[in-house]
């Protein structure tokens, strides 16, 4: 019985240690991690999907966008400006505020479907039609 009592005491000690160790809330970690994966890379468009139609751009001259660490962005169409990652209505998004080559301001938002160190999946909806864009780094 004493052996059981000693083991129970050890378990109790561990439980106390767990209870006193605080658990930090990590609401901004998703955004921090998204920046970490997104920034300092050039993302090349490999595929686009609208409804069930998939277009491939692999092996061709394709659209690319560069997200720089200082939150600036430039793409192959010559649009340049700033970007930010936000979480709105439980959805991670990339917000881009840029100017065209003719210096016309333009703002667009992409939903982040999936992001990793090598693959990025974004989507946007226009006129009720969802388009998904598949990017990768080279």
């Amino acid at each position, binding site marked *: 019985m*004493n*052996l059981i009592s*000693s*083991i129970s*005491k*050890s*378990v109790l000690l*561990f439980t106390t*240690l*767990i209870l006193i*160790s605080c*658990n*930090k809330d*990590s609401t901004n*970690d*998703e955004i*921090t*991690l*998204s920046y*970490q*994966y997104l920034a300092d890379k050039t993302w090349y468009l*490999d*595929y686009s*999907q609208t409804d069930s139609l*998939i277009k*491939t751009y692999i092996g061709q001259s394709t659209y690319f966008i560069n997200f720089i660490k200082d939150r600036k962005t430039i793409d192959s169409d010559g649009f340049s400006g700033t970007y930010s990652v936000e979480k709105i209505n439980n959805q*991670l998004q990339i917000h881009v505020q840029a100017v065209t080559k003719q210096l016309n301001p333009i703002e667009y938002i992409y939903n*982040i*479907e*999936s*992001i*990793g*160190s*090598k*693959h990025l*999946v974004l989507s946007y909806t226009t006129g009720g039609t969802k388009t998904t864009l*598949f990017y*990768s780094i080279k």
Partner: protein
Amino acid sequence: MYKSLLLVFLINSFIFSTVSFGQRNKQSASDKEYLIQKENRTIKSIKSSFKKSWGRTFINFTKNEFSLVSGINFSRQVIKTSNYNSNFNYLLSDFNKNVAKPGFYGGIRIDGMYKQKHSYSFLFTLNKLSTGTYYKDHKDIKPIVGEFSNFKGDEQFLTLNAASHLKKIIPIFNAAKYKLSFVAGPSFDLRLSEASIDNKVSSAYHKVFINGDIGLEFDNQQFYTLFIHYQQGLTSITKSPIKTNLNRFELGFMIKASDLF
């Protein structure tokens, strides 16, 4: 006239200051001695009250011997993500490694007898685990080629491990010289290291891992003990729906603290 008066005054001041410094020195030495004695008394009283309370609580635990242990471990995680989803993708070809990776550990151990019959040991160690991560299932992101996971297991952990083992001697050697023992018992790991940013997002890992241990120990004429332990995770170290089993081998060396200090 003034010069001789000044000289007398200086000599007097020097003598008085030397005497008072000596007195102050004596005073501070006796103060120091008093404080040391007081400190010793306090330590002795703490020691005796600890011994009393230890004796009262662990009345059936006798012949306790403290030892220092250290060694290397080889750990592996087997991960089943089931229907876990997140916005993050991890290309499995970069992470999926069905291997055990080496880490190290060190700590203290108490060996003794329970009710004069059963040999036991309590082990308290700090462990630096470096684990291989094997993913049993994967996800596809079509049309992208490759296997993905929405969860990336942490590969590095610092844990505080507490184990209690029962020992049974295997009678194959001359027990007066060499002892080969079989050990078994539960152990607990308290994760001290923070999760990586990938796992802060999901807060996937538990703080405590519960294991079942078995092993063999070889005592060489009480000079030292060599042992090999296998620790099998009894519960998932990650929260549902991700199931992660952590298991490891430990190769260790133990020497009595009284032989060292």
